[in-house]
Structure formats: C-alpha cells, structure tokens
C-alpha cells in the first residue's frame, strides 16, 4: 500500500510499540478507524478487508508533544507561521504543540487564541494549543483575561520571553489560574541580573569578552516562583530549566509537595557554554548554554523525574538575524525536527536513558503538564502516532529543514534516530522521503 493514500480504516503492522514508557520487544500492530485507535497491541491482528501498511520494523509511539514552541504568527511570519511551524512539527514526529504567546501583538485576549486555533486548523498538520500572556501586552503590569482565554481554549499562561519581574503579579497569576485548573509557566530570569548578558557567565564569557548571564538570574527566580506556588497552591511550570541550582530547587519543591513541573530542552541536556567560542549565534539561546555540571544535572533531573518532560523551545529566527554578531543576534534555535534524534544520540545512545523513557518524556509526560489530549494510544484515543527508526543515522541538512527558519546548531551534524512517518487523527502529516 502507498502511505500517501491513507484510507479511513487501516492496519499498521510490523512495528515495535513504544507505549507507557516501555519499548516492546515483540512486533505489534495498530488498527485505525475514522481517525481513532480501534485496536493496538503486540502480536498479530487479522481484520478482513482492511488495507495493511508495513511499518518495516519501525518503532511506533504516540505522536510527540512539544509544550514549548514559538510559531511567530501573527506578526513575525518571516521567521515562522503556524503552518510552517506545524510542518516542522510533523517532520519531527510531533502531533501536538503548545505555542508561546510572544507574537506581535502578543496573545493576550480570547480572540487571539481563537485566531491561532483557526490558523492551525487551516494548516491541519499539527494540533496547536496556544498559551496566553500573563500580562496585557506582556508589559508585566496587569493580568490578562485568563478566564475568557481558557474558555477559548488557552491551555496555560506564560511570560516566556518577557520575565515577570513583579513578584506580586506572579502571585496573582498563580492564585487566579488555580481556580481555572491550568498552569502558569515561568521563564525564570531576573532581568536585572541578566543585564545585557548574551551567554552564560563563566570562564568562556571571560575569555570571549561577551557579557554573561549568571546562573543566579535563573536560580533566584525559580526559587521565588516555587515559593509563590507553595503559598498559592497554584501549578507552576518551569520552562527550559538550565542550571544545577534550579534543578535542585525544583527537586526540593516537589519533595515538599509543591505543585511544580519542569521541562528541559535538547540543547540544555546536550551542549555547554564552550560551544560559544566559535562566536556562532547558533549557540546563543536564553537561558544560555551552561557548564557541564549543569548539563549533567539536567540529565539527572530527567532521569529521576524532577524534570517532567522534554520541550524544544523551538525559536525560529531569520538567516539575516542569525548572521548578526553574537552579541547582536536574537536568542533561540529551532528544535522540532532534531528533538528525537538529539535525544536518541545524546541520551539513549550514551546510555543515560532508555528509549521508552525518552519517548515517555516527549509524549505522555508532556501531555500531563497542560492537561492535553494525546500522549497515549489505546482504544478510542485519537490516532496521533509516529513511526521512527531509532538506529538510522542521518545528517541534518539545511535544504531539508521544514521550518521557515534555519537556525539550528545541529546543521551538518550526524545524528541517530529518524522520523519516518507522522499521523494526526489517523491522517498522514509527514512521510520520510525513502519511506513507502
């Protein structure tokens, strides 16, 4: 059968199921009907008159879920649109993403949420779940209409990109969101301590003459926000955790019973500040790439559950912007299309995490943070799934990038683990060029 013409009902066979954090040793099947899972399991299923697709021995798991992406629409479509971002998501095996609200203008009202849903529906390549800004126009002064935005479908609120320096505002946001049962996500950065910093403050910033962002800019804000979560009982979600101190704080907070969750990006569990010595803005992100003990702490946090999930902080910027000098270029890299491969290459192949756990961190665990559907495949759930080859080596080529932007530090790098096909609601949204 041709993967490009998927019927309403079909059977995927010759796959290894990866469900609930476990990779099955046996060959299994998935039976899809009308966009839903009809049956899934190890072994063989024989159904009469249903077309069969051969999975060629690939791993089949729930579609990946990225709870931290920037799709730039409206306002910055030269970097990415909801459609091009969805295309990149599908190519990376993602079927759901949570978008950050720092668009132009920011997503700070219910009509903006509705607009993003509409644009995502037109694209149809990925489920897009918008978050709203904590403050109107992201100015850090007064709360947005959380209730109205939640009614329109917002899954959370965040100050990502424009940290809430006003502790009182953050406290009210946590109190108010608790009533609505949704998380408040913090981009933990004391902007006065970060100052004009462009990379991690340490030995490399001293050598390179680039202004540094000290760990304490992140550590102190995570401490503040954990204590605010303790005081209010609200759900705090920590975005892109990057320091050892922050991981320790979240670990203690969880032990104390505080309602806190955290995510880590592939770049923070892989790269460190020494990469900045090339002065390439592909290594400029916020929070910055830290030191090796921080990288190890992030990995340890992923292993012991302190960090709940992996999120990419997919942050597209134009070629021109990333050709500026390091101190002038914008922060951020794209991440959707390399997330699985970077995870397999630097965690699974390095023996730090097994594949089942990696997939769990990119699916079920991610869905829990924002109470999203998806992340599981069982009878009756949406047929959002991905097939990937965990052993295939490939080189990240600029011409194959599906995002509108190209700002990846992994361009030209050889990685292991390749997405072969992605399905959303049973519909094929991505097919690798040699997979048929």
């Amino acid at each position, binding site marked *: 059968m041709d993967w490009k013409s998927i019927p309403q009902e079909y059977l995927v066979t010759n796959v290894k199921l990866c469900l609930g954090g476990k990779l099955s040793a046996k060959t299994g099947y998935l039976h899809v009907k009308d966009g839903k899972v009809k049956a899934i399991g190890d072994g063989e299923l024989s159904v009469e008159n249903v077309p069969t697709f051969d999975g060629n021995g690939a791993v089949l798991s729930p579609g990946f879920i990225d709870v931290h992406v920037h799709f730039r629409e409206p306002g910055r479509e030269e970097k990415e649109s909801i459609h091009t971002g969805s295309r990149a998501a599908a190519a990376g095996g993602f079927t759901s993403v949570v978008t950050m609200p720092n668009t132009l203008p920011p997503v700070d009202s219910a009509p903006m949420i509705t607009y993003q849903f509409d644009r995502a529906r037109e694209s149809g390549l990925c489920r897009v779940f918008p978050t709203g800004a904590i403050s109107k126009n992201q100015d850090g002064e007064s709360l947005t209409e959380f209730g109205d935005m939640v009614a329109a479908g917002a899954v959370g609120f965040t100050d990502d990109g424009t940290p809430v320096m006003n502790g009182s505002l953050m406290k009210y946001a946590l109190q108010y969101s608790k009533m609505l049962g949704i998380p408040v996500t913090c981009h933990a950065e004391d902007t006065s301590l970060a100052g004009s910093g462009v990379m991690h403050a340490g*030995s490399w910033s001293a050598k390179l*003459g*680039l202004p540094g962002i000290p760990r304490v800019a992140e550590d102190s804000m995570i401490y503040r926000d954990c204590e605010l979560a303790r005081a209010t009982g609200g759900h705090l979600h920590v975005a892109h955790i990057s320091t050892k101190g922050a991981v320790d704080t979240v670990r203690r907070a969880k032990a104390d019973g505080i309602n806190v969750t955290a995510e880590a990006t592939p770049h923070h569990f892989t790269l460190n500040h020494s990469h900045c010595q090339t002065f390439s803005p592909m290594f400029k992100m916020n929070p910055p790439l830290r030191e090796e003990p921080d990288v190890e702490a992030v990995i340890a946090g992923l292993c012991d559950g302190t960090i709940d999930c992996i999120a990419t902080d997919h942050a597209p910027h134009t070629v021109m912007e990333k*050709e500026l*000098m390091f101190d*002038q270029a914008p922060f951020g890299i794209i991440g959707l299309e390399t997330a699985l491969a970077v995870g397999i290459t630097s965690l699974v192949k390095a023996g730090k995490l097994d594949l089942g756990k990696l997939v769990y961190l990119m699916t079920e665990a991610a869905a829990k943070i924002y109470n999203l559907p998806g992340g599981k495949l069982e009878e009756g759930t949406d047929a959002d799934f991905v097939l990937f080859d965990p052993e295939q080596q490939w080189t990240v080529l600029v011409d194959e990038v599906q995002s509108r932007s190209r700002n990846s530090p992994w361009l030209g790098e050889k990685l292991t683990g390749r997405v072969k096909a992605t399905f959303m609601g049973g519909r094929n949204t991505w097919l690798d060029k040699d997979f048929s």
Partner: protein
Amino acid sequence: MALSSKDLIGLEHMSQEEITLILDTADAFRAVFDRPVRKVPIMRGKTVVNLFFEPSTRTRISFELAEQRLSADIINFSASSSSLKKGETLRDTAENIAAMKIDMIVMRHSSPGAAQYLADVLDASVINAGDGPHEHPTQGLLDIMTMRHKLGSLDGKKVTIIGDISHSRVARSNIYGLTKLGAEVTLCGPPTMVPGAMEQLGAKVEYDLKKAVRDADVLNILRIQLERQSQMVFPSNREYALMFGIDEDVLRTTKPECFVMHPGPMNREVEISSAVADGPRQVILDQVTNGVAIRMAVIYLLSGGDPGSLAGRG
C-alpha cells in the same frame, strides 16, 4: 619564518615565535622612523580599507600612518555598528567591499568575534583593531614591544594590569601575549571589574593594589570608562582613585625601576595622577610611537613581506 594565518585576529591563537617575529620586524621599522624619509615602497599598489564601526582616533590614525609609511592606498570607512542592526549585515558590508578588490581590511567593531567572522568570509587579510571587549592584538603587541625595549627578555618578568579588566580588549591581548613570552601577569582592580574567572586566561588576580604592585616590573594602567559608574560597577571616580589610582605614593612602594604604561586616552587624576602621567617613570609616548611600527610590521608580514629583506632597508 612567516605568519601562519592571513589574518591577525588576536594573540590567543598566536605562537611565541610569531609574536617574536612581529616584534623583531617592528624594531626594524622603528629604525626607519629616525631617517629623514620615513616612507618605504613596500605596499605600493596594494589597497587597505580601514573599517571602523566604533569611534577611534588614536588607533585609526596609527593604522593610517603605518599604511601611508608603507605606501599603501587607503580607504577609510566609518559607520556605527548599530546602523547595521537595522538592515545590512556585516557580511553584506564586507562582501561589497571585497567585490571592489582590496588586499587588507583593518576593522574595529563593538562585537566580540566580528574580526574572526570577517576573516572567515573574506579572502582578504583582516587585522583586528578591536572587537568589543575581546581582543586588540596590535595594542597588545605595541605594549609588549615597549616592555621589551625596557626589560629585554620578558621571561619571568612581572606585569601588573590595573583597571576594568572584564571589559578590556587591551587586557586580554596583553595577557595572552605576555604569558606566551614567559611573563607573569597580575590583574588588579575592584572585583566588579576583575571577576575571578579572569584567572582562566592565565593571569593571577589580586585585589589589594599594594600587593599587586610590590614586585611588579611594569604597571599597565587601563582607562576607566567613566560611564560604567552609572552601571553600579564602582561607586565613584573619587573612590576608584583612592583605592586603585596610581600616583607617586603608590610608585614609592614599587621597585625603583618599575615603569608605567597607559594605552590612552587617560583620565588624569582617576586611574593615573598627572604627576605620574608626566613623570620620569612613564613610557606612554613610546607606546604611541611603537604602535605605528607594530602596525607596519603586521601589515608587512600579512601581505607576504620577507622579514629578512628589511635589514638591508633599515
């Protein structure tokens, strides 16, 4: 012996032999200065572009003079680097200039890494005339040349650099060059200007000025950028002068032969007192003269000049 790179980006990645070659070549050019005709026809027909994205008087004039004394054709281009943010990138500017077929670019830019970037995208030679707080290799070389004239070999000599090390390209190039030649470098200033991480560069950090100057053979005093005061880095000029300013009282605590350098421009009565700046133990104007010789040497060597042939000319 020749330089291994087509560019001079910094002293960090330069070998001891290369640094010595530049210093020896500069000494040969320095001898030309005392002749009635100070110009040599070495760079005739070659074009050098001076690309200054940050205001500079001393360094730009010194480079221009060096280029003129080598008979090069010169183009001067000044622009603020912030105007580049809005549209044209450094790459656009550089490629446009390169399309006009030039041999060498001397660039000052506010961003660390800018010179390396330019060198990577262009075939022409690039000389870094300062890339933000990162490096200023010709200043480092002229400082070392001046020290070498006074001290002979730098091996085992003690150099103390005083000031805002964290934001100083002069300090970084000094540290890299001096340590390669065997000197011991001590950094001194308030911790807000001399973070402990600076020891990673191979220097010692000492916050007590008395201890920092006691055994020094040279004091290299950096300019304090007065605007840094508003960024809470230090309380006042007055306090800086009291704690870290070099005046005659401080000099009395040093070895008698210890001498004083300053890359200019000076804030008199802040980091250096007028009595010291104009006194018998400073070599500040020698630094300026040596700067032209160093820049002639660098331009000459990067354009493929044979250091051996200079002896005949001198």
